[in-house]
């Protein structure tokens, strides 16, 4: 009889990650999810089957060698583990927190067919946090190539391109329009989901790779792309300027006081730290009954921030719960913290008080229509179903589009007139020679990791372009 290996008993349940108690965390801006302890990370890592043909990899837009880094955790080789991640991903502390792993790597994990998939994101975060506590290692760089690259925007796409190209020996300058780096990681995602100290660390890491970060430089105004290439001597340019332009509803009364775009609200609260006003100088004025319009992750961030500022929050979404585009985990967190959802309803008009501050809004009930070719269900208003909701603060979180400044100031750069996105091929090349783009500016608002994936592909293509350029 052939010798049989003892079959390891598979634990179908993933190791839970500790979170702040909902009642407590709903009143503070500290991080909600607390991360694994070493013992918890060990236990979770041991659930990984180390598949010879790993499926999880297929779900990762930046192709992190997942089984390898998990093996390092199991063997307590943490320094080695984090370096393995960093061969593919310069921002693991960010991705370990905000990536939608449930629909990417973890969705492919084979254990997921029998129980809960391995918590890849939590393990990634564990290693990234371990590195933060134990000191960063700067990986070796290729010898200088003598090529100069300009990266526009220090968000997830730009940071990825800058890190990859700097490691390959190119001289990289990153131009950031705001006064801090990080892009949406700094101005958009709230402190309780992604502490700014972590974002700063990741930005510092990219600077330590030799990237020159210039803050307060709005490209299109201070320099145009043609100027960077002609006078600035840059051999290639990457545009990662994101999707920063807010969308409004177009309903009457939208310019009343107390009606914020999600961007304004989040910029005040996150970037300018208005939640610590008057310690910090930028104020935010928020009422007792906030209505957040929208159903994506940005809407959840606005809702959860509002609750932390002491308000009760109602989320108004025109489709039903099943269509909410936000991450499931975020919806669950928000509801635990006290979010009330009103589905199948849309705004019609806003009403103000005598001082021009919003006091109520008219809404209309919606119904779902049959799915379209893409399988997404449309909505239509139900005539005569208008109703009034009282509110004193409204936050509009119905999407962002790319900022048009670069498109307007770069001759020959093709963009989509309807969505404002810059047209690129599969590796991020634009209509101009040596100019690449990726992330939200090319796709419209999407996720941090998809922007990083686009950055990876563009960096590879730019490297080839630079090395072949005479």
């Amino acid at each position, binding site marked *: 009889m052939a010798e049989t290996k003892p079959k390891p008993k598979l634990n179908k349940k993933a190791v839970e990650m500790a979170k702040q108690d909902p009642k407590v965390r709903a009143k503070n801006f500290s991080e909600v999810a607390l991360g694994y302890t070493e013992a918890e990370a060990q236990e979770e890592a041991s659930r990984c089957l180390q598949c010879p043909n790993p499926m999880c990899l297929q779900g990762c837009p930046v192709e992190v060698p997942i089984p390898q880094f998990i093996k390092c955790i199991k063997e307590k080789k943490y320094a080695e583990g984090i370096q393995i991640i960093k061969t593919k991903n310069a921002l693991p502390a960010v991705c370990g927190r905000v990536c939608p792993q449930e629909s990417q790597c973890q969705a492919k994990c084979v254990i997921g067919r029998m129980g809960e998939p391995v918590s890849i994101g939590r393990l990634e975060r564990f290693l990234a946090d371990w590195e933060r506590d134990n000191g960063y290692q700067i990986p070796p760089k290729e010898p200088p190539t003598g090529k100069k690259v300009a990266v526009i925007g220090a968000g997830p796409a730009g940071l990825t391109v800058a890190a990859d190209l700097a490691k390959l020996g190119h001289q990289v300058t990153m131009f950031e329009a705001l*006064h801090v780096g990080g892009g949406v990681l700094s101005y958009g995602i709230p402190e309780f989901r992604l502490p700014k100290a972590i974002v700063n660390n990741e930005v510092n890491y990219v600077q330590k790779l030799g990237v020159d970060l210039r803050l307060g430089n709005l490209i299109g105004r201070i320099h145009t792309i043609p100027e960077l290439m002609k006078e600035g001597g840059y051999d290639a340019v990457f545009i990662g300027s994101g999707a920063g332009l807010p969308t409004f509803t177009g309903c009457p009364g939208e*310019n009343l*006081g107390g009606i914020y775009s999600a961007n*304004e609200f989040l910029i005040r609260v996150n970037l300018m730290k208005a939640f610590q006003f008057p310690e910090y*100088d930028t104020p935010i004025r928020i009422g007792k009954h906030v209505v957040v319009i929208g159903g994506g992750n940005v809407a959840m961030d606005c809702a959860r921030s509002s609750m932390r500022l002491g308000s009760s929050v109602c989320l108004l979404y025109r489709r039903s719960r099943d269509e909410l585009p936000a991450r499931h985990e975020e919806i669950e967190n928000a509801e635990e913290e006290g979010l009330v959802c009103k589905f199948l309803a849309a705004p019609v008009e806003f009403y103000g008080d005598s001082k021009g501050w919003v006091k109520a809004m008219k809404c209309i009930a919606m119904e779902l229509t049959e799915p379209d070719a893409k399988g997404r269900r449309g909505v239509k208003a139900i005539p005569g179903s208008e109703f009034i909701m009282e509110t004193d603060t409204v936050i509009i979180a119905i999407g962002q589009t790319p900022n048009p400044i670069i498109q307007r100031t770069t001759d020959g750069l093709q963009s989509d007139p309807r969505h404002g996105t810059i047209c690129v091929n599969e590796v991020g090349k634009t209509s101009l020679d040596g100019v690449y783009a990726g992330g939200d500016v090319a796709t419209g608002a999407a996720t941090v990791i998809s922007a990083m994936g686009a950055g990876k592909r563009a960096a590879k293509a730019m490297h080839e372009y630079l090395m072949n350029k005479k």
Partner: protein
Amino acid sequence: MYKIVSKTELVPKIKLFEVEAPEIAAKARPGQFLIVIHGEKGERIPLTICGYDTKKGTISFAFHEVGKTTKDLGKLSVGEEIDNVTGPLGNPSEIKKFGKVLCVGGSVMIAPLLLQSKAMKEAGNYVTTVLGARSEPFIMLEEEAKKYSDEVIIATDDGSKGYKGLDFLKELLKKEKFDRCVVMGPVILMKDVSEITKTYNIPTMVTLTPIMIDGMGMCGVCRVTVGGKMLFGCVDGAEFDGHQVDFDELIMRQRTMLPEERLSSVLAEISGGCKCGRNKA
């Protein structure tokens, strides 16, 4: 870091800074603005460009010390550095030969207005500049105005110097034909002047200074209604057709954070200065 090379008090509480910023100076044009931020806990504030010197590599801007941020800024001395100055932002004003141009400025915005007067004169226009203020002590930059204009008119709210109020404008427009009017100043001044010029059919451009945070199209707090359309002060302006702007809405939107601004200012007075950690006590 942006080093302050000169600091002038134009009139009480209105200061003019000249700051080293060669890259901005090379690109700045009349009508554009800057976002200034100082101190780790500071606000981002928009300030209209008042001048630029490409040889010296400097830009200048004026500000009225009304809130905590501007008061803190006013305490900085020559040689000290401002953390961040972003610009030039917004679209440059339309400068070309129109013929006769009337430039009307009020309060702190007189400083950037004179940049317009100068540019309009250089473009071959006959320039009449109106300097407006509350009362005589607040009239500023009169000599510069004379240098850059063919005619200078002074008006005050209380009549302590020059004309009293804006009634003279109606008389002036009855007598003389202007081809273009440019107004920079408090919203109420821009509103009143636009109403007057409308009756005489004079194309009028106003430079709006709504509340802004990023100043580059992200936050949307600077949204204004112009000709019934929602536009952004920062990326669509800052110059707009004064006959199309919904000034009442703009005035209302300017006031949305007043209680917080007052609180901030009062607390700063009590605690005796800014918290940016740079100023000596």
